[in-house]
C-alpha cells in the first residue's frame, strides 16, 4: 500500500502516492505543466526545462523541474507565476531559434506538442532574425523512419525509448552543445522491432513515418479505435482513415495489453488494405481449365451452395471440409464452424496449428503477470519474432523487475541473453528435458514433504531444496525452477505440434503443476485470433467453449441453439483435409497451396472455395473465390493471448464488393437453407431465372436447422454468448474500448493433475546432415506482407538457411552461397547464412518465407526432420 502525500499545486490540494512526480501530481489536480522531454513511460531526464515551476519553501521559492522532482508532504508548487511564465517563454524562444517552423509541410503539424505549447505559452513574436542552423533533413534512420535533425529539439524520448524499453540503444547524441544532433551509429540503422513508437512519442515532427508520410493531415483523419490482428498480443491501435483509404496506424493506450506501444509490423503493414490487387468481386471458374471470371455475389454463392450440395448428396457430408485461419474474427470463426456443424453436418473444420497442437485453453493468466513474475519460462516460443510487444514486456520484467528467463528452444533466441538459463533442445526433444525437470522437481517435492517435514513456506508451497539427481545440463534450469516463487510458463506452437508436441505440453504442464503453478501455464498461438478460434470451436474435435465433440450434453445444448446437433464423430484435421481427405474444401483466409505438395493435393479436389483478401496460391486453384474484407473494414471481435475479447470496429469502407467473413458465411447459410426448401411458387418465374437459381434440394430427414438471422456482427456475438459459456456476458457494448478478459471456470481451467508421460530422447540428425529448425520471423513473407508498402516489403529476407558458424566451417561451406536443402519431403534452394544463435547440428529455416521453404521441407509436421545441405 503506497503512502499518500498531500501537496498544493496552485492552491489546489491534491493527494497522490508517494514517489509521484510533481508533473503527474499537477495533472491529477487538473493543472497542466507543459513538457517536452518528460514522458510518463520514460525515466525522468530534465533536459528541456519546459516544466520549471516554483517550489515555495521556507527559504523562499526556487525553480525546479516538475518532471524530476518527486512529491513530498506539504509541498507547495506554483505553476503560473510571472517567473514561471517568463521561463517558459524563454525556453520556447530558445527551442524555436533553430526549429525550421515548416509546420505547413510537417506531418506532425496539427498534433504537435511544440505547436500547441508555442500557442499556449510562447511569446507570440520572434526576437531572432538570424539564419537558422542547418542540419540533416529527411534522412532515413531505417527503412521505416525518417529523421529531420532541424526539427529535433533533443528531448531524448527516442533515445530513451530504445534504451529503456527495447534494450537496443540505437539512437545516440552526436557532437556537443549547439551542434548536438541525434543520429544512428555508423552502419547500424534502427532495427528494433518496435521502433515506430518513437514516431508516436516524438514531440515534434523530427521522426516521421515513411509509409504514411505526406499522406494525411491530422485534422482531416477519421479516427477509429481498433486492435491489431497481426499477432496474438492484440495491441490496441487507431485506424486513421481519409477518403476511404487507411492512411496511418498509431498506437492506442491499453495498459493491460500493449501499454502504449505497437510493433513495427502492426504500425507499418497496413497498405494491403488499400492494395490494388485486393479482390473486389467474387470470381467463378465455369469449367476446369478455364480462367476465373468476375461474378455477382448471388451467382457465386449459388455456385457454392449447388456444388457443395451435390457433393454432399453424392459422397456424404464427410466429403466436405473447411480450413479457416485463426486471423479471422470470432464472429467469422463461429459462423464457419456452425456452417459445417449445423448445416453440412460434419466436424471437418480446422486451421493451421489447430487440432495439431495441444493448446492450454486458458491462455496467459494476464499480460500484466509478466511484470510480477520472477521466472518466465519460454518453451518453443520466440516473442521477439512472434509477438514483439510481449517481448517488450518480458525485457522490461528482466531489466526492471529482476525476472529471470528460462529459454527452452532449438535456437538461442534473442531473449536468451538475459539472466537465467538457455536450454538448447532439438525440435521434438522438448518433452525429454521437460519431463526430466518435472520428474526431478516432483521427487524433490515429495522428499521434502515425506522427509523432515519442514515447516511449510509462507506461500504454502513446499520448499524444493532436497538434492535430486538432475542431469548436469538441466541443472541451471532446475535451480531456476526450484527457486521460483512466481513463475510463468509460456509455450508456442513450435514445441506443441503433433505427437511429440503433445508429450512436451504434458511434461510442461506436469512441471507447472509440480511447482504449484498450473494456472500460470499459457499457450500462445501464431495468429492473432488463435485463442478466439479455439474458443469458437474452429477445431475438428472441439466444440465452441473448448468442449469435446464427443460430449453429448454439449451437443444437445448446441442443438437447442442451432436447431440441429453437431455430429458426434470428430472430423478431419487440417492435414487430412489438405491431403485429399475431402472432395470439396472451403478455405477461409488460409493458404494450403503455398507449398508445391499442398497445391498438388488441392488439384485433386472436386470443388474448392476460397474466401480471402487476395488471389493467393490457393485462390488461384479455386472454383469460386469470395472477396473478404480486412479487419479494418468490418466489425468483429478478436480474443488475444490473455483471453481478452476486444472490439475491432469498421474504420474504412470495404474494398470493392468485398464483404465481412461472417457476412459471407451468413449469406451462404441463408442460401443453403433456402435451397433445401422446395418452393413451387418459384417455378412460374423460372423463365426469367438463370439455371443456377432453379435447383432445389429435398429437406433432409430430422430436425431442421434454425434460420440464420444476423443483421450485424454484434448479432453474431450475441449468439456466441449463448454458445460459448465464458462469452455469456461479452456483449459488444460491454467490451468497451479496452476489451474484457473472459473468466476461466470449472469447464475451462488450468491443469491440476500430473499426467504420466512416456518419453524418449530425440536422436540427432545423422552425421553430415542437420536437424531442421523452423519458427517465426517478424518480417516473414506471411500472407499480407507481399501487399505492404515497399519499405515494409524490403524487410523480408531472401529465403535462407542458417547454420552455426562452426558447422559452416566444418562442412567447408561459405556464407552467401546458394545451397540445396533436401529432406524426405522435398528440396529447396536457399541462400546460406552463418548464425551463432543456431545450434551446431541444426539448420534454421524460418517459417513463411517466399516459396514456403520450411513448409516444403516438412518443418511444421511436428516431427524431427533431417536435412542435407549441398552447394548448388
Amino acid at each position: 500500500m503506497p503512502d499518500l502525500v498531500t501537496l498544493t499545486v496552485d492552491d489546489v490540494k491534491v493527494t497522490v502516492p508517494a514517489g509521484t512526480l510533481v508533473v503527474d501530481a499537477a495533472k491529477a489536480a487538473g493543472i497542466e505543466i507543459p513538457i517536452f522531454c518528460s514522458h510518463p513511460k520514460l525515466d525522468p531526464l530534465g533536459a528541456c526545462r519546459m516544466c520549471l515551476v516554483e517550489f515555495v519553501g521556507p527559504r523562499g521559492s526556487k525553480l525546479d523541474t516538475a518532471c524530476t522532482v518527486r512529491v513530498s508532504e506539504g509541498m507547495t508548487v506554483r505553476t503560473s507565476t510571472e517567473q514561471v511564465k517568463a521561463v517558459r517563454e524563454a525556453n520556447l524562444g530558445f527551442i524555436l531559434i533553430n526549429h525550421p517552423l515548416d509546420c505547413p509541410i510537417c506531418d506532425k503539424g496539427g498534433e504537435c506538442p511544440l505547436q500547441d505549447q508555442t500557442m499556449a505559452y510562447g511569446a507570440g513574436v520572434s526576437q531572432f532574425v538570424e539564419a537558422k542552423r542547418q542540419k540533416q533533413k529527411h534522412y532515413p534512420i531505417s527503412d521505416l523512419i525518417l529523421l529531420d535533425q532541424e526539427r529535433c529539439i533533443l528531448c531524448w524520448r527516442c533515445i530513451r525509448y530504445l534504451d529503456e524499453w527495447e534494450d537496443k540503444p540505437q539512437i545516440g547524441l552526436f557532437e556537443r552543445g549547439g551542434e548536438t544532433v541525434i543520429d544512428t551509429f555508423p552502419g547500424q540503422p534502427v532495427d528494433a522491432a518496435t521502433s515506430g513508437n518513437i514516431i508516436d512519442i516524438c514531440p515534434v515532427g523530427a521522426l516521421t513515418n515513411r509509409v504514411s508520410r505526406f499522406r494525411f493531415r491530422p485534422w482531416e483523419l477519421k479516427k477509429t479505435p481498433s486492435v491489431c490482428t497481426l499477432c496474438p498480443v492484440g495491441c490496441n491501435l487507431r485506424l486513421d482513415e481519409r477518403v476511404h483509404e487507411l492512411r496511418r496506424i498509431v498506437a492506442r493506450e491499453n495498459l493491460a495489453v500493449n501499454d502504449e506501444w505497437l510493433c513495427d509490423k502492426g504500425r507499418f503493414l497496413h497498405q494491403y488494405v488499400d492494395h490494388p490487387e485486393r479482390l473486389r468481386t467474387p470470381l467463378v471458374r465455369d469449367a476446369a481449365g478455364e480462367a476465373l471470371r468476375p461474378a455477382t455475389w448471388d451467382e457465386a454463392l449459388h455456385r457454392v451452395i449447388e456444388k457443395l450440395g451435390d457433393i454432399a448428396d453424392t459422397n456424404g457430408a464427410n466429403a466436405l471440409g473447411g480450413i479457416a485461419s485463426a486471423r479471422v474474427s470470432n464472429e467469422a470463426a463461429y459462423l464457419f464452424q456452425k456452417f459445417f456443424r449445423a448445416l453440412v453436418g460434419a466436424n471437418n473444420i480446422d486451421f493451421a496449428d489447430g487440432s495439431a497442437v495441444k493448446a492450454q485453453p486458458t491462455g496467459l493468466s494476464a499480460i500484466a503477470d509478466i511484470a510480477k513474475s520472477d521466472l518466465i519460462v519460454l518453451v518453443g516460443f520466440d516473442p521477439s519474432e512472434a509477438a514483439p510487444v510481449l517481448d517488450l514486456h518480458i525485457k522490461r520484467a528482466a531489466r526492471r523487475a529482476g525476472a529471470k528467463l528460462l529459454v527452452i528452444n532449438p535456437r538461442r533466441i534473442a531473449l536468451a541473453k538475459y539472466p537465467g538459463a538457455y536450454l538448447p533442445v532439438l525440435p521434438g526433444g522438448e518433452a525429454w528435458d521437460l519431463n526430466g525437470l518435472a520428474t526431478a522437481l516432483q521427487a524433490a517435492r515429495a522428499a521434502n514433504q515425506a522427509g523432515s517435514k519442514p515447516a511449510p513456506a509462507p506461500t504454502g508451497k513446499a520448499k524444493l531444496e532436497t538434492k535430486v539427481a538432475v542431469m548436469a545440463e538441466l541443472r541451471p534450469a532446475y535451480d531456476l525452477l526450484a527457486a521460483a516463487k512466481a513463475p510463468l510458463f509460456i509455450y508456442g506452437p513450435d514445441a506443441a505440434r503433433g505427437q511429440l508436441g503433445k508429450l512436451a505440453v504434458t511434461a510442461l504442464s506436469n512441471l507447472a503443476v509440480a511447482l504449484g503453478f498450473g494456472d500460470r501455464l499459457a499457450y500462445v498461438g501464431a495468429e492473432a485470433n488463435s485463442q478466439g478460434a479455439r474458443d469458437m470451436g474452429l477445431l475438428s474435435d472441439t466444440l465452441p467453449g473448448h468442449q469435446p465433440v464427443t460430449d453429448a450434453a454439449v451437443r444437445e445444448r448446441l442443438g437447442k441453439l442451432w436447431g440441429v446437433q453437431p455430429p458426434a464423430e470428430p472430423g478431419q484435421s487440417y492435414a487430412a483435409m489438405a491431403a485429399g481427405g475431402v472432395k470439396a474444401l472451403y478455405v477461409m483466409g488460409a493458404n494450403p497451396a503455398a507449398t508445391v505438395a499442398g497445391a498438388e493435393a488441392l488439384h485433386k479436389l472436386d470443388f474448392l472455395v476460397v474466401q480471402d483478401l487476395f488471389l493467393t496460391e490457393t485462390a488461384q486453384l479455386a472454383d469460386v473465390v469470395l472477396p473478404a474484407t480486412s479487419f479494418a473494414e468490418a466489425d468483429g471481435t478478436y480474443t488475444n493471448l490473455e483471453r481478452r475479447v476486444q472490439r475491432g470496429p469498421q474504420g474504412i469502407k470495404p474494398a470493392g464488393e468485398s464483404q465481412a467473413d461472417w457476412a459471407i458465411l451468413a449469406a451462404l447459410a441463408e442460401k443453403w437453407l433456402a435451397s433445401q426448401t422446395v418452393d413451387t411458387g418459384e417455378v412460374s418465374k423460372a423463365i426469367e431465372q438463370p439455371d443456377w437459381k432453379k435447383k432445389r434440394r429435398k429437406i433432409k430427414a430430422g430436425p431442421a436447422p434454425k434460420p440464420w438471422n444476423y443483421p450485424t456482427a454484434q448479432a453474431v456475438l450475441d449468439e456466441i454468448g449463448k454458445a460459448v459459456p465464458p462469452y455469456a456476458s461479452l456483449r459488444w457494448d460491454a467490451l468497451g474500448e479496452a476489451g474484457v478478459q473472459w473468466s476461466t471456470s470449472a469447464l475451462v481451467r488450468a491443469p491440476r493433475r500430473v499426467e504420466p508421460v512416456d518419453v524418449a530422447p530425440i536422436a540427432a540428425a545423422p552425421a553430415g546432415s542437420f536437424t531442421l529448425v523452423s519458427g517465426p520471423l517478424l518480417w516473414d513473407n506471411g500472407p499480407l506482407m507481399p501487399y505492404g508498402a515497399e519499405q515494409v516489403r524490403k524487410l523480408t529476407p531472401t529465403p535462407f538457411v542458417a547454420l552455426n558458424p562452426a558447422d559452416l566451417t566444418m562442412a567447408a561451406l561459405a556464407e552467401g552461397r546458394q545451397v540445396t536443402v533436401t529432406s524426405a519431403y522435398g528440396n529447396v534452394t536457399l541462400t546460406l547464412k552463418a548464425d551463432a544463435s543456431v545450434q551446431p547440428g541444426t539448420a534454421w529455416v524460418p517459417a513463411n518465407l517466399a516459396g514456403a521453404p520450411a513448409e516444403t521441407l516438412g518443418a511444421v509436421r511436428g516431427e524431427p526432420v533431417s536435412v542435407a545441405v549441398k552447394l548448388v
Partner: protein
Amino acid sequence: MTTWQPVLLANVNRPNSEKITTYLAHGGYEALRKTLKMSPDQVIAEVKASGLRGRGGAGFPTGAKWGFIPKDAPVKYLAVNTDEGEPGTFKDRLIVERDPHAILEGVIIASYAVGAHRAFVYIRGEFFLGVKRWIKAIADAYQYGFLGKNILESGFDLDVSLHRGAGAYICGEETAMIESLEGKRGEPRLKPPYPAQAGIWGQPTVVQNCETLVNIPHIIGRGAAWFASIGTEQSRGPKIFCVSGHVNRPGNYELPLGTPLREIIYEHAGGVRMGRSVKAVIPGGASTPFLTADKLDVPMAFETLAAAGSALGTGAVVVMDETTDMVEVARRVMSFYVHESCGRCVPCRLGGHNMLHELDIIASGQGKRANLARLEALTRGIPGITFCPLGTGMCEPVASGLKLFRSEFEERVS
C-alpha cells in the same frame, strides 16, 4: 609577506620527483602506514576535524562527504577527478606530472576511510605526460605493496585504474565524469541520487579533486590540529593558487588560505606586467565573477570571497591589467562555455549560443542598444534554470562584466 614552507608542492621541484623512491625518501607513504593502524572512522573523524574543504571548486567539506557513504554498502568506489579544465587552473597537472604518489597516497587513505576497494583516476585526456607518470606510479605502488591485496599486511585491498577523458570540460562535473568513466557520453546526471548514494555503476562513490587528496596524507601525518591551525575560520589549510594573466611571474603558488589577493599578485607573482595597474581579477577560475582593483585586499578564502561577490572556485587567479578589453574578455570566456556546453538542456545549449551571438555583434562594433538589452536579459534569464551549474557559470563572467564594466559595453553599441 606570508612565509609558507610548501607542503603540497614540497616535492615537485626535486629531481626525479615523480619516482616512488624520491617520494619514499622524503617520508612518502608514512601517513598510509599510520592510517592502516587507525580505524576507518578515526580517519574520517580526523579529516572532519581538520576542516578540509574540497579543492575542485565547490568547497564541500571532505570529511562530511566521506561520512555520507553508507557503511553497509557492499561495493563502494572512489574516483579521483583529475579532469582539470576550468580556464586558468593548472595545479592538478603539476602534481600529476611531478608528484603522482602524493595523490596516490591520498587515494589509498581515502579509500580505506570509506571502505572502497576500487578507485578510478579520471584524468584529462590531454595530460599525456601525466597519464604516463600515473601509470608508472600505480605500477610501482603495486610493486611496493601499497596497492593490491592486503596492503602493508593490513588486510585492506585496493585496486586503482586510470581512465582518460576525451576533452570535455563538463566531465569535470562529478556526475558527468562518472558517466564518462562508465563509457557513456559525458553529461551530468540527474540528482538526486548523489554519487554518495549511487555513483559509478550505481554504487556509492566518493569523488575527490586531486589537490584535495594531496592534503590527506599531511592531515593524517601531522594531525588535524596542525591543518586546522592554518587558514581562516571557514577555510583551513594550504591551497595552491594558479596565478596567470598579466603578472610578471605566473605560476602555482602554495599559500595558506586567507592570504590576501594583493599579496599573491604583487609579492608572490611579481606584480603586474610593465608596472601597470590591475583592472580586474578572476579569483577562482572562469566561472567566478570578476573582482575589481578596489577588492585586492580580500583574503583568498571561501567565505571572504563570497562576501566580496565572487568565489574561491579552484583558486585560479587570472589577472587583467588596465589595457584589457572587458567586452573581449566576456566574449572569449563565453565562447569557451558555448564550446563546452554538453547540449543536454535547452537554456545552456541554445541560450549560450544566443549570448555569444550578441557578444559577437557588440564586440564587432555593429551592435545596437537592443543587442545589449538582449544580452543582459539572457544573463538574468539563464542562471538557475539549467540542468547543471555550467549554464549558470557561463553567465557569470558576462553578468559581472556588465555590472562592473558597463561603460565598456555601452561604448561599443549605438
